[in-house]
């Protein structure tokens, strides 16, 4: 699929009351910039610009939108508004804050707080040794506070993954990018496909979108925890449905992490949505349960897989 990329607004561009510093990321649906507001505070600005529908040439500010793309463009804008609405009504330390929303250059912009830090993805890539049992429990328990808030507003995130979990420098995780949360776009606007990330998206994401629920985000949480420990993306759910080659966490890392944590990860990664934790609360409970760590050999947990594999690894202590 060859797609022309949109040109970002140039550095030092004055956008409403904000001055753009640089482009932070470029997605199919939007561009994110770092900018400075009139008080000198750094903010992140997300620009609605689906590159299949609107094209901005180099040196231009307004995108070119073909007339027959205008309905779809406007329709996508509606979804962008819904992301804004969803976030504006959420005030939680573990969910990104929206500061402003405005219209310019024939499109719309969402201003969000900008925090020093990096995504969980970057963090685990940089510091593999730091992914300890405590780190995982800490980060995910806090992150799940945010997700709980999201679910309590009857919203789903639908694109949870380590690169959408932002770690403030004080190691408080923040959920970012709710672009998929309200991605209610469908075949009638084929230019705007539902978004998800293979490896983190639940089986329901692929073909049974009417079954999406809190358990779908929970699958993604499980996949994210798995990815943190493995250092790579787990097998995609659609491929797992064909032939499941995902080695259970319990098998792969027994002895390095508590059985209880590993079982919780495997629990989240059940292909059948009914077998997963059904609510964030249930998952949080599992993550905060007191555990005999760090060399956990809980007597009743003698699964056959556990017996087969982990025995050799007992000595390593994360």
């Amino acid at each position, binding site marked *: 699929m060859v797609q022309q990329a949109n040109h970002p607004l140039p550095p030092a561009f004055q956008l409403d009351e904000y001055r753009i510093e640089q482009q932070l990321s470029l997605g199919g649906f939007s561009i994110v910039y770092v900018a400075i507001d009139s008080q000198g505070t750094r903010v992140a600005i997300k620009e609605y610009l689906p590159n299949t529908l609107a094209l901005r040439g180099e040196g231009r500010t307004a995108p070119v939108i073909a007339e027959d793309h205008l309905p779809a463009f406007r329709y996508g804008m509606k979804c962008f508004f*819904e992301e804004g609405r969803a976030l504006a009504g959420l005030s939680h330390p573990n969910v990104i804050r929206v500061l402003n929303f405005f219209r310019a250059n024939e499109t719309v912009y969402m201003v969000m707080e900008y925090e020093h830090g990096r995504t969980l993805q970057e963090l685990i890539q940089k510091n593999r040794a730091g992914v300890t049992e405590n780190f995982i429990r800490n980060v995910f328990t806090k992150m799940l506070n945010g997700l709980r808030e999201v679910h309590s507003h009857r919203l789903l995130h639908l694109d949870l993954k380590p690169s959408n979990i932002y770690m403030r420098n004080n190691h408080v995780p923040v959920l970012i990018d709710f672009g998929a949360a309200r991605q209610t*776009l*469908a075949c*009638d606007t084929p230019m705007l496909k539902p978004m998800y990330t293979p490896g983190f998206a639940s089986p329901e994401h692929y073909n049974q979108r009417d079954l*999406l629920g809190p358990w779908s985000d929970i699958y993604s949480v499980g996949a994210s925890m798995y990815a943190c420990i493995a250092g790579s993306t787990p097998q995609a759910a659609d491929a797992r449905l064909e032939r499941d080659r995902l080695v259970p966490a319990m098998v792969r890392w027994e002895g390095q992490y508590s059985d209880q944590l590993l079982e919780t990860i495997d629990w989240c990664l059940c292909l059948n949505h009914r077998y997963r934790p059904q609510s964030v609360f249930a998952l949080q409970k599992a993550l905060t349960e007191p555990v005999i760590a760090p060399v956990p050999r809980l007597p009743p947990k003698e699964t056959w897989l556990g017996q087969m594999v982990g025995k050799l690894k007992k000595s390593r202590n994360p």
Partner: protein
Amino acid sequence: MKFTIYQESRTGKRANNEDRLAHCYSRDSLLLVVADGMGGHYYGEVAAQIAVQTVTEAFQREVRTRIRDPFLFLQKGMLNAHRGILDFAGKHRLADSPRTTCVACIVQNNIAYWAHSGDSRLYLLRKGRVLAQTKDHSRVRLLLEQGVISEDEARDHPDRNKIYGCLGGQQTPEIEFSHKTTLEAEDVLVLCTDGVWSGLPGPILAASLKTGNLMRTVPLLLGQAETRGGPQADNLSMIAVRWQDSYVDESSGSSSLISTKSMSRDTVTTRMAGFGRNPGQKTELSEEEIELAIEEIRSTIQKYSK
């Protein structure tokens, strides 16, 4: 509330489209209206427009997330439309007041309330079957009920367009109300004019709308009905709504799923067919709606920022 909705109106083979349709919704309440201006009468188009506009404007005015008494609302709305049409006729010294059918439905708290006058219909479809439908206020319907004529005879009866009890006529309109009907997920509500139902038997309608994308199915059905209408095909209008459970996301094959959860308390979104001939191509958001949406998000941000 979550639902998918699609509405379309076609002129058929007539010179003019005298059908009107609209839907609007607040966070917790949905209104659907279809009106069919009387063909033989002058200004049928205006009568239908008055009906649809009167009811939707009342909705926008009165809805406080919900409508307090839906049946009362429907009755008042239709009677006001009736008077509005008479006023119009008086003002323009029309010898014969234009008339219109009207069918309107409110859904809130998962309960549907509907009322109708004339021969525009509402169907409630569940699991591919017709669960309920309105009874036409037409002479043919009466003859059919009395056993004077058969279904087949009714279809081609010379009086099949003779209706009574519509808005704008000499008499106070006859308005018939439904029961309160609880909707289940995947239920489909269809409101349509006679141009549609005369060419599409209820069971076929129900089977066709059982699953699938309304955005694709409804135009197909209208196409079928139009073909059956032949060279004289009447105006055809239809609103179809598929009711959904709260957590349901966009299923890959359906049209725009609307979730009112993130709507603000006092917003009402309205889609009125007006004089548009091609709603499928219509822009989803007007300039005004964009401004409103931004205003709303900003005020929410303000509310939570302190």
